[in-house]
């Protein structure tokens, strides 16, 4: 399962499809203080990224995959500028 929703943490693994965006968004809204574990995330549909970036939840672990370097940059820098 690419998206596992636990009590406090949602774990995103591998590739997350657009279908997961809604459940992720609803889950994030259900209670505050929920965080995301992106450690094993390799890629996702833009809708997922939009939820992650737009909701700005706590990220417990940043993605390890180097190809998601830009996501880390966008999440950590206010300028929203990424240089590859």
């Amino acid at each position, binding site marked *: 399962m690419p998206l596992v929703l636990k009590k406090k943490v949602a774990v995103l693994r591998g590739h997350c499809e657009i279908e997961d965006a*809604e459940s992720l968004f609803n889950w994030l809204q259900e209670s505050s203080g929920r965080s995301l574990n992106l450690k094993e995330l390799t890629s996702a549909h833009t809708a997922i990224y939009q*939820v992650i970036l737009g909701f700005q939840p706590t990220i417990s672990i940043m993605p390890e995959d180097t190809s998601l370097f830009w996501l880390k940059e966008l999440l950590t820098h206010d300028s*929203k500028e990424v240089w590859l």
Partner: protein
Amino acid sequence: MSELLDVFINESRENLESASRGLLTIQSSSSHNGIIDGIFRDIHTIKGSSDLFDIKPLTALAHAAEDLLDCLRASEVVYTEEIGDLLLEVLDQISSWFDELELGTENMNEWKPVSVKLSDSLRAFINADNPKVTSYEEQPHPVSSSSENVIGNIASESPGAGPFTSTIGTFTSKFSSSSAIILLAKTQSENLYLIDYQPDHDCFFRGEDPFNVLITMPGLLGFKAAFPLLTSESDIYESALSFVAIGEADISEIDSHMAYYEGQYHVSHISRRELALSCAAEIRDAVEKLANESLLIAIEDGELEQIQSVAELLQTSGNHDPMTNAVLCYLAKGNEYPANSTQAHMQGSVKLESLQLTDNKHVKSVSLYEVELLQQQRKLLDAEYYNRELMLPSVANLTQQLLCRFAIECDLTCEESIRNAIDRALSVASTPLENSQPENDSNSIDVDSHNRHASSNSPAEEGAKSERHVVKMLKVDQEKIDYLMDIVGELAVAKNSLPYLAKQAEKEGGSKALSKQIKSHFSIVNRLTESLQSAVLQIRMVPVSHVFERYPRLVRDLARKLNKKIELVMSGEDTEFDKNLIESLSEPLIHLLRNSIDHGIELPDLRIQQGKAEKGRIDLIATPLDDSVVIEIRDDGKGIDPEKLKMLAFQKGIITEHQLETMNDEDALQLIFAPGFSTNEEVSDLSGRGVGMDAVRTMVNQAGGKIEMSSELGIGTTFKLLLPQTMSVNHVMMFEVADQMFAVSMDAVVETVKVHRSEIQRIRNQNVLVIRDKLIPLCELRSALGFENQEKGEECSILIVTSPTGEHGLVIDKFHEGIDVIQKPLEGVLSGYSHFSGTALLGDGRVLLIVNIQEILACH
């Protein structure tokens, strides 16, 4: 190449052709007023459309040409042979740029100096006669304009070329202040792009994935994303993202990457050199602010390696603000410290212009500034990078001249080193470009016109040109196309047999599944056959000008013979038409034109008496209308008198006395199409040979078209031909009579009805049917086609069709489906039977006879 660019180039080529035709006409004749106007419009169109693309040098050149033409048009500048030659050269240049654009080998850096040079020559003519003319070339633009412009100015002694900095402005406004320097540190490529990508809100529903589109963009170096914070009301399936990205790749590469997202992005080119120039001040400020002694010393010494190592050290050693960090990173990458060279460029242009050094040498003194400037220029020439990039002998010469004058103020070693640098620069510039091009690739700028010619004649480019011509046009024997058409026709027939097969599989094999499968295959084959058919038909389409272009000569000759003055105005010559159809039309059109010339247009004296222009006018207009084409032949002659027509028709026994009295004017006019009718009392050798208009109508009908005529006495006559655009496939409705299949063209079918035999009434020996209060005469097809009359059933199938004489009902045995067939004309012994307009082959091998309704009804 994008489709838009393709269209632009093709259209502009036509404009270029017509402009150069115009110029040649001017050169061969004395009057040129109207022609200049035409050329102006052509160039204006090219300029306007070129603005859509990032080809500024072309736009600028077209703009300059347009300005000159405007002055010529307003007679502010007097046309001379020289101007004509220059304009032709400009047209050639633009044309060769189009070649490059088509091949995708365009290089703006090479274009710019050429554009500047030609534009200046053009403007020289304007300014010589009219110093007040201003243009966008000469409008003031920011000092931070591109470096090549400044240098180009010195070289070509011209005011600045077009502003190239707008994209940089966009870039710096969208990204943070240090981003430009970060970018400079990241790449050495000149080929940078800036893309503004705003995915549509509903793009997710189209399966688009904007982030991944962005990340996979070719040569992506950096981007900035904008996204809204989500609230509980946000629709997460609506994209609210927008991006600005920058990278190194050709615009064309980006266009092909973004092909599916047209309208959602805008991409433009950024020049690294211009960018470097625009950030020069920031880099200097940052270095000054850093106030690191070793860095400043290194910079002062101009030792690149030293600057590099100091910057690297500084980068790792301390915590700097983003700007400083970016600058250090930029310097650590071995980039040149821009401050002085920029100053040199800027001051160079300012000072040299103010001193008028560019065009005269009467300088009395020179300040330390100038000496410093010259020394900087020496550095410039010395530096490998600039040396290769600029190759400007004129700069070298200028520097040399100045330096020789003021050698006293400089030290001698300086003079010697500058000599060496100049020699090297000159030798690089004079080596043939073929050799230097591979290493210069996109960076070479050749101002020297000799070099330009050398490059444009290089074998590689000529090869490319010929390649383009080969690709563009393919001449094919028409027979081959006809053969292809025949095969496609047979394929259509073979395809039609699949439904029969499906029916058989169901009936005899009892397999519904197999039948279904055949049917689904049929739909695929059907689709492919249809697209094949339309592709082949498209090949056969030619512009109507193929036929039209013979007419001006014809009209001129005939008019002279008859001592009339006639002007033929043609329009819509580019309307496309099936080749065969067009040829079959040629004769009727000639006939109609002859009629207009002979009977329509009056003699000049008579025209003047009637208050008309001495010169008669015949309009030949082709306009596409849905699937057909309308060809109109309109003359402003004497028109046709319906009374006279009626009288003549009566005399010839075409109409009865009763008709003579009751017929309205419109119907009377149509009498002209009656067989054997010629209104001109004297039969001339031009028209009215007894062939008459009925022959014209027959020919048009054979081609599947219609002819209409309207006329107003004393004002003129109009013939309107409505023709199908292709002889393509005919859609016919099949029906059965005496167990045989027949068909009528679907266009003629109004409706199909089944009525009880008792509803058919008999009036005056004629079976009629009343449908919705309308009386419809019936025609028993069985008897009309010569079959035996069988015992009549209770119900009657009636096919109601239209014909020129109104609606008629054909009594048939059974209705069948509509079908697409390729109609073949009747041949051999059958060709005499006008009851049938043609035959077609059915899918099961049977021959389908297509009924000619008009003939059947006429015989009936």
